[in-house]
Structure formats: structure tokens, C-alpha cells
């Protein structure tokens, strides 16, 4: 029984690596930390792991679908991540000290995913919430187009730390098909940058209250100074939310009257 395990993953195929991880978790009930060194493209790390009080530290670059279906653990990546980290995440926290690929946070239904750098296209697609479970995706720099597509719930915060909050962001097709949840973008957004079904709503005091905790937490995770934190908290945000929870209601008519 050990509390901490380290694996040098060089040259280990993803299947064997994940088998090893699962076995270690099974054999060590008190396990608190797994450190994976030299990770180079191994996919599916953390998939379907259901355990609280466990941290998985990844030194290197994990492959696609990192922590898919995961419930509980904290995953910390010191490096970039490939596409769809946090895919259908259930609970837990993923911290990426780098950037990540397309469909980051695909269909997250709970937990949080913080990316220090940028994310690819279609990130936060189809995130959804139910009762107490609200997924949160925070992106430090830029996000590719179609951010929050088909979003059905949860919170996306795109901090755009590479630019000033007075500038227009570069995204297009923001929130296409969104019918739940909310996207906060630090900076300005033109209506023409929105996808169908998305709308720009007033950023209110309640909204600021809602995101304050997450921004503070984000800054703590990445060790940002108070100065940066305050700058982020005092920035201008654009709030993007659905026009309705039934975007397709008016699209159809019964074939019998």
C-alpha cells in the first residue's frame, strides 16, 4: 500500500500504461498521487477513473481524450494536451499548464477544466448541466471558432489574457446552437461573431459574482499575482447566452396538421 506512485512512461503503449494505472489504483486503496513522467502522446489517461482524493500528475504531453468520463480525480498536466481533454467529464478537476486541442471539454457534464494557454476549435461543445452539476471550462488565452457550440449548460470563461479587454476578440461562430449555459468572454464581441441561437446579454453584477470564484481559483491554480487577478476581475466581459432553451421549436411543423 503506497500513497504515491511514480511511473516512467517512456516507451509504454497507452493500453499497457492505462492498465498499469488501473491496477495501481485497485491495489493501493490509500493512493493519493500518481506521477507520470515522460508522457508522450499516450491516449485515454484517466479514462473512466472513479475516485476522490487522487491526483494524477502528467509531465509531458498526453494524447487525446484525457480523463474522459472521469469522476473525481484531479489531473494536472505540465505540458500541452491533445484533442478533447475532459471529454464527457463527470466530476473532478483538470489543470493544463499549456494549450490543448480541438473539442476541449467536449460534452462535459460536471467538474472543471482550466487551460492556461489556448484551445482548439469546437471547445466546450455540448457541455450540459443537471441540477447541482455545472461544468466549468476556463481558457486563459484564445479559443478556436465554434466555442460552446450546442452548449446545453455550464460555464465557459475565455479570459483572452493575450489581449486587452477593450479589443474585439477573434472568435467566430460563438455558441452556435447554444440552448443552455453561458459563455463569458473577456473583451468585445460583435454580434456578427455569434452563431445562430446565441445572443449577447448584459453582463450584470450577478454575473461577476458568479465568475469571481472561478477566476480567483484559476489564478491560484496557475500562481498568478494579485495584480493579474484583480485585472481579470475588473475587466469587461461579454456575456453570451442562448436566445431560448428551445432553439428549434419554430423549425418544424407536424406533417398532419
Amino acid at each position, binding site marked *: 500500500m503506497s500513497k504515491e506512485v511514480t511511473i516512467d512512461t517512456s516507451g509504454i503503449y497507452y493500453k499497457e500504461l*492505462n492498465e498499469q494505472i488501473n491496477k495501481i489504483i485497485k491495489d493501493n486503496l490509500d493512493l493519493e498521487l500518481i506521477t507520470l513522467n515522460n508522457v508522450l502522446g499516450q491516449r485515454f489517461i484517466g479514462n473512466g477513473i472513479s475516485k476522490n482524493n487522487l491526483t494524477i500528475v502528467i509531465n509531458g504531453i498526453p494524447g487525446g481524450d484525457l480523463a474522459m468520463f472521469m469522476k473525481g480525480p484531479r489531473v494536472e498536466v505540465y505540458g500541452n494536451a491533445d484533442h478533447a481533454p475532459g471529454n464527457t467529464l463527470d466530476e473532478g478537476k483538470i489543470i493544463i499548464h499549456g494549450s490543448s486541442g480541438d473539442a476541449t471539454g467536449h460534452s462535459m457534464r460536471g467538474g472543471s477544466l482550466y487551460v492556461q494557454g489556448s484551445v482548439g476549435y469546437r471547445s466546450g461543445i455540448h457541455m450540459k448541466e443537471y441540477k447541482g452539476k455545472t461544468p466549468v471550462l476556463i481558457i486563459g488565452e484564445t479559443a478556436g471558432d465554434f466555442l460552446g457550440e450546442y452548449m446545453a449548460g455550464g460555464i465557459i470563461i475565455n479570459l483572452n489574457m493575450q489581449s486587452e479587454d477593450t479589443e474585439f476578440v477573434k472568435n467566430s461562430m460563438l455558441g452556435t446552437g447554444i440552448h443552455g449555459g453561458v459563455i463569458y468572454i473577456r473583451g468585445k464581441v460583435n454580434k456578427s461573431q455569434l452563431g445562430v441561437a446565441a445572443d449577447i446579454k448584459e453582463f450584470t453584477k450577478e454575473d461577476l459574482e458568479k465568475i469571481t470564484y472561478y477566476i480567483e481559483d484559476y489564478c491560484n491554480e496557475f500562481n498568478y499575482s494579485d495584480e493579474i487577478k484583480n485585472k481579470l476581475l475588473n475587466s469587461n466581459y461579454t456575456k453570451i447566452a442562448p436566445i431560448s*432553451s*428551445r*432553439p*428549434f421549436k419554430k423549425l418544424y411543423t407536424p406533417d*398532419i*396538421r
Partner: protein
Amino acid sequence: MIPSTVPPKYKITIDHDKCILCGRCAKECAWDAIRKSKDKIITYDNRCGSCFRCASMCPRDAITIIENPSQGRKHPVWTPEARQDVLNQANSGCILLSGMGNAKDYPIYYDNIVLDACQVTNPSIDPLREPMELRTYIGSKPEKLEFEYVEEEIDGKKVKKSKLKTKIAPNLKLDTPIMIGHMSYGAISLNSHKAMAKAVKRCGTFMGTGEGGLHRDLYEYSDNIITQVASGRFGVNSEYLSKGAAIEIKIGQGAKPGIGGHLPGEKVSAEVSMTRMIPEGSDAISPAPHHDIYSIEDLAQLVRSLKEATRWKLPVFVKISAVHNVAAIANGIATSDADAVVIDGFKGGTGAAPKVFRDNVGIPIEVAISAVDDRLREQGNRNKVSIIASGGIRNSADVFKSIALGADAVYIGTAAMIAMGCTVCGRCYGGKCCWGIATQRADLVERLEIEEAADRVSNLIGAWTHEIKELLGAAGINSIESLRGNRDRLRGIGLNEVELKALGLKQAGL
């Protein structure tokens, strides 16, 4: 002013001599097509979808639902339906929504295929006397079996024992090659799901959950359940995935190839919202593609990640709709670690689909089975995946023909619903199914008696299973394995040369 009235399709006629004014019909019709006034039953024909509930419940048989003879002039091109659709869309500017399967008059190839039987020289087998093997394993099969010999000491003697070295992929064990396909909780009621779950358990087979998650009341049937992961990822978490015996990735559906699904907010009740894990009353939208799948390689990645999440213990199926290049796609799927490919033909049912898709997109399942079976054999991949065929399978002969064409097993959907009372009225999307099937309205759901419906469905599967045994016996075959892909036992009738070629069949008489 342009008159915009669409003439009603059906006419509700009440025989006022027989009617005793009990008002039962008015209570039974969820569409408000019948009302009872003080001394008369009043009908609103334009609301009627001919679901037949009122007529079956009338204690005096006083109700007849007929096609409305007054739908304007008969015309071979501009049929009443064509005109009604134009009017409807000219009025609304909307996409026409429809339910159930393809309602156009396409050829049904099953009905142009006849079966073989034994006479004199090759005796038939009597299934009542001799065992008939219908057991079917769904999943990947190894190319070859390898054994190793280990020496063991038994009673002081050294004995060489052979042990299987080849790793066998997880397979589903079916007592009959008939399963119930995926119809989601949300599209249909919990009582329907429960009835079907009971039935498949009794019959030693499986049912699909559809993409709406799994209600906890069905957890006890998990050994007979195939969960589904679709583009909306509704209700999907690791608990759900582990609650089934297999997982199916839904790429497409025969009734609406190429598009996703929208469960209208009206049907997202409190319970449905719980299993789907979305707020009550919001639309449940499944996008057209999975946004983490843009290629066969991405599909392989999802297959593998589902396997990883369930520790490689469950078979993973991939369901696609039957389209022109179905063979190439199925072959790609076979190389992706998937264990079965489900092909859904264009006659497959649905809770809701744009009419233009339901009636025009996709190809018949019969030709798709042949094409896929042929291609997988050519490429040496047939053992890697099982083929499950679905979409318009109406009787045991259709099942038999599907297997002889190359399928391992079939999914039925509409047939199971008809067994539970569905009258194929095609208004499932309206959420008011008077038979308690395609609805979430509590008072309507209650109408479906679970035990009775379970009996009906298991009777149906049982009856078909018997018939398949008889057909096998008549063909002189005692195992379904020997029928699989055995197209030599089929002949085409009334088909042209190209059709015969596509199906891989000989002409009857040859």
C-alpha cells in the same frame, strides 16, 4: 385571401344509432379530436391521426376512422398528400416533421426473395425432434485459435493438456438472433422500456437503451441491455456505461441518415431530464456528427476510449445508417477495434424525423447487408465484426433472409412497438401517443400495462424464434451459423439482373 385550409386526412365517423354517449372516446383521444357535448359526440377530423385508440375502446363499436374521401380531386402526380404538404409548408414556412419509418412506396426486397427447402435427396430436419441451434455470439471473433500444451501431473502420470492461447474478445451471447433496437427513454415511455426489458430477459436476448440514458428502474436488467452513446452524449457517464452488456456508438439512424436528433422540450419531463442529465423542458439536441469524430481514425479513438473506460470488458458496436458507401464505412469500422457494426436501413422507424429525410434518404437494408458482408469478406475482415441488421424487419422470414444475406443478428423496433399496441399512426413526435408508448404524459403512460406488454413482446420474439427453427429445419440446416451468409439458399423473384447482382442472389429457377 388565399384559402389555406389543409383538408383533413381522416374522417371520424360516429354511428349515432349505436353510440350510447358514454364519452369514452373523448377521454381516450389525447389529440382532442373528439369531444362530448350534452347529447352528441363532436369530432374534429383535422386533429385525427388515425391512431385507432377511440375505435378500439368504444364499447359499442360505433367509431370508424376512414381516409377522408373529400381531399379534393384525385390526381396521379399532385396527390392529396403532395398538395397537403405544399399547403402546410406554404402556411408555416417550416420543415415537415414526421414519425415512424419511410412511408413511400419503395420496393421491399424481402418480398422478392424466396427461401429454399429440402426434398427427397437432402432430408429436412424436424425441429421438434432434433435440436436447432439458434445461439448467436455477437462480437469480434479471432482469425484462428492457438493452443499451447502444458504438462500436468494427474494421478502421478504426466499428461499433456491443451490450453487456449488466443485471447477471445468479449461477445454477447444470444439465445435467438433477434434483439430489440435502440429506442430512447424520452422518445418512448418508461413503461415501454420496462416491458421490453422484461421481454428480452425472458427471451435470452438484448435491447438497446437508445441515446437517452438508462432509468434506474432498468438497472436490474443490465445483463440484457446495450447502452448507447450518441452525439448528444445524454446520460453518459461511467456508471451508465457499466450498466450495459455492450455499448453502441450511434453515428446514424436509418430513418434520418446524416442528421442528428432533437427531442422536443415537451417530452423532457422531470424523469427524462434526470436520465438524460439535462434541465427539464429544454430541447435535447444531438448534433449531426459526433464532434470528436471527423474520420475513421477518430471513430477508432472513441471506440477505444469507451473500451478504456470499461476496461476492455464490453463489446462496442457502431451503428450507421445504410447509405451508398455503407460497405466502405463498415469496413473502416471493422478495422477500428469495434466488435459489431449495426446497419440501419432506410425503412427504420424513429420518434421524429424531417419527412424529407424519412422518405428519401438512405438505402434498403437488404442490399446494405449484402454489400457489407461482401466487402468485409473481400477484405478479410468479416471475422472482426458481427453484422446487426435493422430497419423494416417485419416477420421471421425477414430475419431469416437477413441472416442468409450475411447478417449475424437483427434489431427489431417497430415490430416490438406494434406488439405493445402501436398502430403506426406516425405521430410519435407529438408526445401524445394514445397507446402510452411514444409519450411522457403520465396519464397516457399508465395506459401501457407493463406485464401485458412484456408478454406480447416476448410472445412475438418466441414465435419468430420457433418459425426460424422450422425454416432452418426445412432447409436441412440445424444451426443458424450455417445459414449466415448462405445466399445460395435464397433466390430472387421479380428482380432485374442488376438487383440480383446487388443482392448477390440467383434468379428463382436457376
